């Protein structure tokens, strides 16, 4: 032990995320000041916009739903030592599955439609994660480059489908027709309406519950099952894992497919929840935010949920801020997100010093 004072054990996991959040806030504050606005009042506007009203909280939770899914997707792959940049594409392809299932679900009994849609979306997302996984495991393809390419392939596929075969007849927009009622995720507003309370107008829906269940599921899988142990062992040291008899192919492919399945939740929340139809570019960069969420949550399901709530509040608060002060556009959130990724992912890391490693 060195003589250096150590922080208490319970504090340590929170130290880097909090420090990086501080750094990101500082950077964002600097950007706001450079534009000529008051950073403190902007900060107050973000907090008030995201947490100051029932509507704000509902929108925050709606965004957080997306980030829980994408953050978990990145985190699970990261635990296996795989950097999955393809969450955006996996969610996009999952959206095709969600839409096809939803458009054909009118004949199903009402209680069967949601699980049917959920499973179809998850299978499509898992497939889009499986492909880069198998290419890495069997052919040695670089996972990062392959998943980037798969993002573009997914977006080309989606735009072709929406221009030609899936477009609603007679529609000028590249979108499908509306999903039937049984295919829509129950909205929080519907619940409020039952009690006759004021509606929030937010797209918050039952996908949030699915997201929380997914977080629990990911936690159980990673820390309570053999497959999860294999994933973590492989991520920690793939040579040792292989020596211990863990199959590299199975671990890589399994982790990537599970990651893709988690990404499909974004399609669920956006399509079956908010939009009620398949539209172009519904993934809206949420898949990339997942990287920041996972890094900030230290690739742990509990951390991911907390970080997702923070980013949800940032998104909602940022939208309110942009509405109040037109000079500060919503893109400030993207900047903050970039600084978070930079701070947690790069600046926090320090190359091992010679003689110590």
């Amino acid at each position: 032990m060195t003589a250096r004072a150590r922080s208490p054990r319970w504090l340590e996991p929170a130290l880097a995320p909090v420090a990086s959040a501080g750094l990101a806030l500082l950077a964002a504050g600097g950007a706001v000041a450079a534009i000529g606005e008051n950073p403190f009042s902007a900060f107050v506007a973000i907090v008030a916009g995201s947490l100051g009203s029932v509507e704000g909280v509902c929108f925050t939770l709606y965004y957080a739903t997306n980030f829980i899914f994408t953050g978990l997707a990145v985190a699970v792959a990261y635990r296996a030592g795989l950097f999955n940049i393809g969450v955006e594409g996996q969610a996009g392809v999952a959206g095709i599955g969600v839409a096809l299932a939803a458009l054909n679900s009118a004949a199903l009994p009402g209680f069967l439609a949601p699980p049917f849609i959920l499973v179809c979306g998850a299978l499509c997302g898992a497939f889009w994660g499986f492909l880069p996984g198998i290419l890495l495991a069997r052919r040695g393809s670089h996972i990062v480059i392959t998943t980037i390419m798969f993002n573009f392939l997914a977006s080309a596929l989606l735009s072709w489908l929406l221009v030609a075969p899936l477009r609603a007849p007679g529609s000028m927009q590249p979108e499908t027709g509306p999903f039937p009622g049984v295919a829509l995720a129950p909205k929080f507003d519907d619940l409020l309406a039952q009690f006759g309370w004021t509606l929030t107008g937010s797209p918050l829906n039952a996908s949030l519950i699915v997201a929380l269940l997914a977080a629990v599921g990911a936690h159980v899988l990673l820390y309570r099952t053999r497959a999860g142990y294999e994933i973590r062992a492989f991520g920690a040291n793939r040579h040792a894992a292989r020596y211990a008899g863990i199959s590299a192919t199975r671990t890589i492919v399994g982790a990537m497919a599970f990651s893709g399945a988690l990404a499909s939740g974004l399609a669920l929340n956006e399509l079956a929840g908010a939009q009620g139809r398949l539209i172009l570019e519904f993934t809206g960069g949420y898949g990339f935010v997942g990287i920041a969420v996972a890094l900030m949550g230290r690739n742990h399901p509990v951390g991911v949920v907390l970080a997702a709530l923070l980013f949800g509040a940032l998104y909602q608060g940022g939208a309110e801020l942009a509405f109040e002060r037109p000079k500060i556009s919503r893109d400030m959130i993207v900047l903050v997100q970039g600084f978070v990724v930079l701070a947690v992912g790069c600046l926090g890391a320090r190359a091992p010093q010679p003689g110590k490693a």
Partner: protein
Amino acid sequence: MDMDSALSLIASALRLSAPILCACLAGLWSERAGVVDIGLEGKLLAGAFAGAAVASLTGSAQLGLVAALAAALLLALLHGYASIDRGGEQIVCGMAINMIAAGATALCGAALFGEGGRTPALEGAARLAPLFAGQDAIALAAPCCAAATGFILFRTRFGLRLRAAGEHPHALEAAGVSVRRARYAAVAVCGLLCGLGGADLALAQAAGFLPGMSAGKGFIALAALVFAKWRPGAALLVCLAFGLLEACAIRLQGVALPLIGAVPVQAIQALPYLLTVILLAGFVGRANPPAASGVPFVKGR
């Protein structure tokens, strides 16, 4: 196809390939020296914004070009600091650069010009005019950059050292040469080339900046780099081919071809990505990156 339309197709292929080629060469410098860079997209975007913003404020395309180079260089040095000095994860850092560029350009654009992030349309001296055969200065310079890259990296001592930093940095350090300095030099050149590509996008191809105008060109450049197997001559050819593909995609919109019928534009647009996946998987040839690229260098004791 008659002679005229063939020539115009080639001319537009050359024009469209210029930003991709610049970014591809930028990635080549960086990765040859051992720093993986998926932040090419962000640097292109930053260059495009800085170029258009300064050109619009000063009315001079030359000053715009200088600003584009400076902005992309700044981001490249940030990438360098995080990945060379701090030993950070280079891919994560590249993603961060992309996000910072996307956010900062749109934010500054909205704050400066108040037109939803875009700059006012550039006119006259604020744009890079075609110099020769419809090609602007950067489109003409890009192939020369490829030649210069080939010469410097493979025919000079500096280039040898730079490549050693990417293949076997410990050997370079043992020879008494600083790996850190070689990598910083490469990252700086990477930034300048991205700035050049970005300036071409905003000052020559378009008349001003639009948020997100790099539209995946930095990632296409990454694909081209894999395709070219990290070689400058091949990079030139691959980027020209990708430019030709883009030019064809524009022209083939809604045109029925003999035998195949109308090809969906998306299929042509997706082709570079699909081919890259196939090549990376080693179904056709093999693409191996420099041995030490992506590995933070730690000095031996």
